[in-house]
């Protein structure tokens, strides 16, 4: 959006709130919702990619060395990756901000 959401007047919105900008959901950093974050123990990781597959927010990505990590801008801390990780390489830890 061209300006913060709470500065839009009603007549400045598109009819039906249509968003013409492609991929604008990226601007909304849902990582703010998180209370826990996933931590990888790279020694235990077998690079199976299940965490990447299961992440409902597509917030997990593979690094150049084949290991996985979360993009904390979008990770909501749901813990599905930790639950699905077969070797137990992912741990959810409380996050202090």
């Amino acid at each position: 959006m061209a300006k913060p959401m709470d500065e839009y007047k009603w007549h400045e919105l598109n009819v039906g709130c249509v968003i013409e900008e492609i991929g604008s959901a990226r601007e909304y950093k849902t990582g703010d919702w998180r209370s826990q974050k996933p931590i990888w123990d790279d020694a235990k990781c077998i690079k199976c990619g299940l965490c990447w597959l299961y992440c409902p927010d597509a917030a997990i990505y593979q690094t150049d060395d084949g290991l996985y990590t979360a993009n904390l801008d979008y990770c909501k801390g749901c813990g599905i990756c930790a639950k699905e990780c077969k070797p137990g390489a992912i741990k959810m830890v409380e996050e202090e901000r």
Partner: protein
Amino acid sequence: MNAKKGIEVSIAASIAAKLARVEVVAAYPITPQTHIVEHLSELVANGELDATYINVESEHSAMSACCGSSATGARTFTSTSAQGLELMHEILFIASGMRLPIVMATVNRALSSPLSIWGDHSDVMAARDTGWIMLFCENGQEVVDSIIMAFKIAEDRKVLLPVMVNLDGFSLSHVIEPIEFPSQEEVDKFLPPYNPLYTLHPDKPVTMGAYAMPELYTEAKYAQEMAIVHSKEVIVKVMDEFGKRFGRYYKPVETYNTENTDMVFIALGAINENIETAIDRLKEEGKEAGLIDLRLFRPFPTKELLFALKGKKRVVVIERVMPGGATNGPLFNEISSLAHSNGMNITIENYIVGLGGRDVLPEDFRDIFDEIKATPEKRTKSKKDKNFSVIGVRE
């Protein structure tokens, strides 16, 4: 002028949709709407109407499919009744919130339980605040004309809202009436192809129906509300243009014999013809009553109604729905609130009639008239446990 043709009103409604060159119909059959969608299905199958007919498994899906097709920019029509309208309920808000100019013929029918396939206004009154523009029809000609006008209203860039054309189940939908159809060329001149503001198209992707945070939801709903409030100007303009082209003039609020009396009935739909007959008969006996027929119910025609109510002393609001625990029927509540907040000194009575297909005859309105005339203006009803009367109920 084109010749009039004796035809069932439901079939006429589907011909009106054909004349409007609808491109997508998604509907699920339900009594008493069935003939409308069956005939549209035939027209498509016979190649007489170049449209896609989407067979769906429910009304929830029907309205969802309509939203999808309208979002792609196709002129979209559907029709339903009673339980079908209720099953669509959540999608009705989505259609209006996404500003999709769908037109729906709602063939008004009682709601279960007890199960009834017969006519009343329970269905539409439960959907009255869904953000749809709502027209009510008194006869078959109005149904045809309203469906054609509905697309022009809905698709106006200043409006972009869905429109519901209400016609009473059986007492209007299944009667055979003489109806004049405009030619295709005339309709084409009145109603050009739909030119959507936004469409769902892979070449120019947009997001429709997105999530709104608390910071935006109020502004979004306010914008929608302003659209329906100001749609009345377009509705009046479209009605005027229709009149100039086709010779049949419509107004949001029609009146009958109101200039001769300070006592008026107010009602919605086909029942108004019975009231007019009753008024004519009363006249023969030297008694005067008037009628205010609300052709437009949403947006509520505040200005026109206040004008029609000017100088009136006794108003009888006729409704085909139970209040459901409210102080009065929904139409009464709005008229009462409007009149009293504008400082009008009017006594308003509420009569419930014609539930679940119960016949309402001109005699019933004559009885109401006599009862009103025999009752003092300022009778207090506060001692009663209800503030309305139900005509013909066996007590």
